[in-house]
């Protein structure tokens, strides 16, 4: 991205170190527990919800990290933590090696420009009372960058054009756009401050197939043009496969498998990953009944009452005694390998 953001407060040392350190966004030991129930810990209903329970992530510059998992796995909480919208119970989030949460308030506010969010629902994420142009301009208005209001408007028109919208529709309200167009607006808004990272939270799951492909291609195109890095959160495994370079699979607040896309999709090591992949209905009727489908029984356990040992053992067909007692840690499947899995009995075919 052509860089006119010299006032972000990046220290020279970090800028110099950037090419040598390809990891742009890093989460270490991220934990977020919510306590519910009586005040001050009194009362019967008190429970600790382990929404995110020890997550390590690394996003390399210019690449896409896909994060898959079912509802309740902690994806949304993790998003909030990565955006510093919520404070972790423990752990750190670093952008360019700087701990976001350790920053003073004003500094944090400026650093937020580096990491922007694209939300799932193009209907609720746009203020119905604003016009398209106002929506796209909002981030620039908040940061007063650029200083002159008319150049912000000009840039907003530019951004609309960049995402395939007609800038002359800038005076329209969100409800006058289709779902796909609204998502484009959301992307234009996210790009307004020339961020380096986009956090895409289910950005295409509310869209129809034909429009979904348009938005996916737009995201990929923008990444190529501006060297953006994405954290791409989705429940649709086929969508993630299409865009991600690396994939992390979440279950019950933890990452159970992580690795480069082709390894995870081609040779899934965690039983849960296998089950997920097997559960995706393939648009090919000839494959019906071809491969043995794994249909998991039951629902994911509640994050308020996670099972002892491996969190997946209640639904796992390979579960043995050790799985109910000892929690497996994320370890490389091959010595020195990139792919890591948290399972006592990983698949090794």
């Amino acid at each position, binding site marked *: 991205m052509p860089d006119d953001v010299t006032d972000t407060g990046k220290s020279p040392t970090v800028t110099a170190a950037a090419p040598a350190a390809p990891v742009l966004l890093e989460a270490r030991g991220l934990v977020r527990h919510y306590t519910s129930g009586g005040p001050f810990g009194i009362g019967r209903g008190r429970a600790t919800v382990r929404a995110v329970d020890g997550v390590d992530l690394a996003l390399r510059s210019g690449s896409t990290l896909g994060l898959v998992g079912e509802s309740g796995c902690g994806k949304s909480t993790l998003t909030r933590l990565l955006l510093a919208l919520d404070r972790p119970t423990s752990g750190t989030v670093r952008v360019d090696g700087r701990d976001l949460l350790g920053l003073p308030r004003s500094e944090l506010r400026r650093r937020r420009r580096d990491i922007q969010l694209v939300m799932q629902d193009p209907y609720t994420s746009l203020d119905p009372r604003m016009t398209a142009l106002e929506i796209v301009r909002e981030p620039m208005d908040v940061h007063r960058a650029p200083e002159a209001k008319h150049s912000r408007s000009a840039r907003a028109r530019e951004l609309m054009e960049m995402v395939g919208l007609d800038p002359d529709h800038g005076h329209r309200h969100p409800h006058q756009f289709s779902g796909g167009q609204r998502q484009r607006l959301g992307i234009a808004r996210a790009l307004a401050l020339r961020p380096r990272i986009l956090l895409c939270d289910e950005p295409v799951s509310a869209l129809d197939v*034909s429009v979904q492909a348009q938005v996916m*291609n737009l995201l990929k195109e923008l990444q190529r043009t501006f060297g953006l890095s994405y954290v791409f959160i989705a*429940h649709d495994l086929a969508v993630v*496969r299409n865009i991600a370079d690396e994939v992390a699979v979440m279950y019950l607040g933890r990452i159970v498998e992580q690795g480069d896309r082709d390894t995870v999709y081609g040779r899934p090591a965690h039983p849960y990953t296998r089950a997920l992949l097997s*559960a*995706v209905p393939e648009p090919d*009727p000839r494959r019906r009944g071809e491969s043995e489908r794994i249909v998991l029984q039951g629902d994911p356990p509640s994050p308020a009452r996670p099972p002892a040992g491996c969190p997946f053992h209640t639904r796992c067909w390979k579960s043995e005694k050790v799985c109910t007692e000892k929690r497996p840690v994320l370890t490389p499947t091959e010595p020195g390998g990139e792919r890591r899995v948290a399972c006592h009995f990983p698949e090794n075919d």
Partner: protein
Amino acid sequence: MTTTTGGTPAEPQPLLEAEDLTVDLLSGTPGAPRSRRVVRGVSFTLHEGETLALIGESGSGKSLSAMALMGLLPATTAEVGGSVRHRGTDLLALHPDALRARRGKHIAMIFQDALSALNPTLTVGFQIAEVIRAHEQVGRREARARAVELMARVRIPDPARRYRDYPHQFSGGMRQRIMIASALALSPDVLIADEPTTALDVTVQAQIMELLAELRESTGSALLLITHDLGLAATAADRVAIMYAGHIVEQAPVEDLYDRPAHPYTEGLLAALPRLEGPPDDLTPIPGTPPAPGPLPPGCSFRPRCPAARDSCATRQPALLPAPPARLVACHYPLEASSAR
């Protein structure tokens, strides 16, 4: 207009037959009424024991077609035209009471959102039992026993105890099972499932689809599956009908449709779909957006987005015509359907 059926000669009487079904949504004030056509003449047949998937994107009219079939659209907000015959009886011509009697008993529906389809203030068991008691002269005790049995059949663990639980005490997947149980309560011969798994996670979706397939096998009822998911239809359907802008644009046995789509829209949908197999290249989207409900320009409604459109597409609207052996397609220039892949 002769009905468009699967094409094989001497077919038995279809179980459910929709002919030229139209839905107009009414809005505006009594002084200045407005109506927008959203289903523009949909015809299809459903035979005993078969699964027909009605696929379409949002706004294509697929869900409204299903609601119209069931007579569930309120007369104040929608006007339904055409005919829907169930075993030869036109449902749309029936008195509302007679239709209500048929609904549930012969045709039952499973909705997408089980949480809002179930009454939050009543126990789930009571709601299933109520369906039985509304249609059959059975005692409270027997209805209860049958409800528990149904809950066991959709594999709800410990059904006798969970009978007394309320909808919010169940997970999404379990609630969808409750819906299926109450749909099955009177052993209907037609099940209409409107996006039955869209709100569910993929592993739970697999459970529900497996359950539906099993139940269909054991009861022999026919299933009309309304979905936007081409993958789901591929794994569950015998025949598939693709809807676009209120029309059925293509209908074919499932393997024909996915192997050799004849309508450019079908082909476009399949090309736009991200997959788990093959190289993860850039997708080929269909340009533009579907038309808004309301009056359409003359000609083919897909023409503005169609890569193969020619001049005549702008003037004549293509009819849904048979393309042997078993396909129906509404396109002036269908893709080479005969050449095998």
